[in-house]
């Protein structure tokens, strides 16, 4: 599973990309965020305010109950500020 971090979440976590292999019980976005938050103090800080975290699975916006599986590309980022 490939995790991409963007903007200030990336700065907190300290890396733009990581490959992770969570247990099979981590089968949706909400559980993945909980699992990732436990990986380091930086991860915990990045994911502290869950309401400002947006998630895309395979480049599509998804909700917290969206399933995640091994081959997925999962991007985690704050609300967008382009334009």
């Amino acid at each position, binding site marked *: 599973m490939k995790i*991409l971090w963007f*903007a200030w979440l990336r*700065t907190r976590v300290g890396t733009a990309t990581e490959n992770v292999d969570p247990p099979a019980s981590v089968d949706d976005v909400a559980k993945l965020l909980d699992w990732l938050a436990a990986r380091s103090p930086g991860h915990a800080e990045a994911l502290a305010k869950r309401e400002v975290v947006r998630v*895309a699975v395979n480049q599509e916006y998804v909700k917290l109950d969206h399933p995640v599986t091994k081959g997925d590309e999962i*991007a985690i980022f704050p*609300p*967008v*500020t*382009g*334009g």
Partner: protein
Amino acid sequence: MAIRVQREDFDVGTELDALTRGRTDIGALTSFVGLVRDMGGEAKIGAMTLEHYQGMTEKELAAVEREANARWKLSATLIVHRYGRLEPGDRIVLCAAASPHREAAFEACHFLIDWLKTKAPFWKLEDTPQGEKWVEAKADDDRAADRWRNPA
């Protein structure tokens, strides 16, 4: 229909001419250019860096453009969005919508920029006298996008 994501600047005249050249069915062409201002909130900013999610950005911009074409009768549309380092006064984004009639051109162009502002995965990192600062999403932008959720 066309979208582009690029580091380089764009020439507005060239882009708009290409949309209407050789066409005689277009009565109205509305365009919007977003530029870097030197005031971001309270703090005077120098330059900024636009980060984006390559791949998803293109998908989202194409979806925004498709949605505009589904909602209005348009003859041509264009979105060009830059990323990377930008100085005050630099162009960031160009949205354009051409139509037989001006109401559709205005509404669609306005929709393109409002919608992409809440959809396209770009993030602004501003240089300020207090150091680098990630721009926070604006409630105004959410409200501007919300207006298009219930089309009249």
